[in-house]
């Protein structure tokens, strides 16, 4: 497997840090009480989202979950609109009506962010069906968790996607927990990737903490789907390094698990790869500095932005046919 070219690697690094710095900033704001909303941390899963988005074309479709910050920012939603939505402002992607669990931004391909576990997969099939019907060549990627792999919608969507050879990539971010329940307590099979075989589908399980494993796997899956060969299930092994949502207790996580998790942190690993590939500390720091500056500006913009008009509760219910 040929190595990732430097330009793409820098792209992945940039997206990864964008996700990570956004996550850090969000936790900082919550910690300081400057913001009080539901937020599902993505610490530990930054690389998976970044690699997946880096493997897509700008106009490809993405369906994600409440824990979708990674896909959303890495796919390129303008930060001001993203923060605006998370803070419930009129400037948000959804005018503050959707919120952190329901970010939608068709311009960047973020078509649905669902809060119902597993419900994104069937919808992803539909986006891909439209592409298959009208031949626009787009690929749809849907991200979901290990826990979601046990709900009916996963099964129905997998079977239907394979039956029609839809251009979909099913990305299961196996962060070892579904809310408070550990993988082994909700699933008795060794992994999720092998479930693909039961549908006649291509499936792989890869290390989501190693850029040289996850990116090639994602790029390969996207090519497979785009070329008309049908859907692919990619299970990315990773860790949820925080509680289920910001502030939620995670005392239920055993000490060994926490230790194992720390050792596998994708960020130091990625930094190491970058240095091996002759990127300098200075270059990498500059990337992060720029991201931080952009985030600070976006956050300030969102904090200063107006609230949505109260009449918004009556709008966008049905098409206004005045």
């Amino acid at each position, binding site marked *: 497997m040929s190595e990732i070219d430097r330009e793409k690697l820098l792209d992945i690094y940039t997206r990864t840090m964008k996700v990570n710095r956004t996550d850090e900033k969000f936790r900082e704001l919550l910690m300081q009480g400057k913001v009080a909303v539901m937020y599902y941390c993505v610490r530990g899963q930054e690389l998976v989202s970044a690699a997946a988005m880096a493997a897509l074309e700008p106009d490809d479709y993405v369906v994600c979950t409440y824990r979708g910050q990674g896909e959303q920012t890495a796919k390129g939603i303008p930060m001001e609109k993203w923060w605006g939505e998370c803070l419930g402002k009129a400037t948000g992607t959804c005018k503050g009506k959707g919120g952190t669990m329901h970010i*939608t931004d068709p311009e960047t391909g973020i078509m649905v962010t669902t809060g119902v576990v597993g419900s994104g997969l069937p919808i992803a099939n539909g986006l891909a069906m439209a592409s298959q019907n009208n031949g626009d060549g787009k690929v749809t990627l849907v991200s979901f968790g290990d826990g979601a792999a046990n709900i009916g*919608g996963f099964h129905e969507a997998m079977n239907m996607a394979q039956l029609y050879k839809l251009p979909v990539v099913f990305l299961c971010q196996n962060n070892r927990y579904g809310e408070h329940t550990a993988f082994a307590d909700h699933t008795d099979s060794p992994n999720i990737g092998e479930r693909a075989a039961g549908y006649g589908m291509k499936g792989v399980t890869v290390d989501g903490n190693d850029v040289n494993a996850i990116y090639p796997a994602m790029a390969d899956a996207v090519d497979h789907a785009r070329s008309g060969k049908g859907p692919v299930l990619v299970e990315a092994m990773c860790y949820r390094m925080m509680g289920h949502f910001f502030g939620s207790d995670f005392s239920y996580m055993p000490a060994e698990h926490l230790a194992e998790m720390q050792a596998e942190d994708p960020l130091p690993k990625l930094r190491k790869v970058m240095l091996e590939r002759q990127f300098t500390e200075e270059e990498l720091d500059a990337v992060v500095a720029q991201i931080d500056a952009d985030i600070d500006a976006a956050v300030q913009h969102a904090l200063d932005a107006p609230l949505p008009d109260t009449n918004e509760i009556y709008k966008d219910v049905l098409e206004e046919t005045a």
Partner: protein
Amino acid sequence: MAEITMTEALNKAIDEAMAADDGVFCLGEDVSAKQGGGVFKVTSGLTEKYGEHRIRATPISETAIIGAAVGAALAGQRPIAEIMLMNFVGVCMDQIVNHAAKLRFMSGGQTPCPIVIRTTTGVGVGFGGQHSDMLEAWFAHVAGMHVVTPSNAADARGLMRSAIEANDPVVFIENILCYGLKAEDPGVDYRVPLGKAAVPKEGSDISLITYGRTVLDALEVAGELEKEGISVEVVDLRTIAPYDEETVLASVRKTGRALTLHEAVRPFGTGAELAANIQEKCWDSLKGPVRRIGGTFAAVPFATHLEQAWIPTKGEIVEQIKASVGKD
């Protein structure tokens, strides 16, 4: 002009819509030519014209069916998804209610979800407890969608065309016992607007408000009572929700009495909303309380005579009307 059955009317409306717009496609169990064009034949002949991609026979996976319709709609297409029998919405309410109906609102208007969910049901066919329910009240209670049901072939053609063109989800309920009903073919490009009720019979003593199959019972009873000097106005909602309040209230203000009628079980049924709204808005014109008739509050039984006893009967309608107008 020629007569058509409701099945043909639905087929023609879908055919025309598919011819007019490449984005319109059908998906559901057994709908394609390979399976004979749907178990009720509504999609027969369409695969031959539009191909397998636009008439997709699906696995038995209602969640995936509705989910796919939602996704395709977000991408700008106009899917017509079939849920073979209405009780099966029980396995896919999440996609219909938490997604299809809410995505326009939750996205701040960015992603409307123009899908038609066709489904059939009805009491009186001997299908028993899990295949006969009318569940329109569930959808009527959900913001962001339309609930429609035709009582005749002409309306079926016109409502289906409008449903496909609507830019929001529409649950389109077909009553099994109505597929064979015949009517003058209203012709190409006929449309019945959503949200507009019909008044198939005018009257002055009482407003009988109903929809779907029971409109037939209502008209029969109205005819019989006419002879006895009781003038019944029959209102066919056609769109159950959001319904045509203007027509309903105008009728009741005129007659001063109202009776609601549906096949669905009475408690917490759509008749409750009609009655509640009528008594609030027409209080001064009402000569007596709004009455309601609905199916028996139990699962639909199998044995034929039990099933017939379960359904609202014409006798019950007559009785309620007479009690309301004070004659017997």
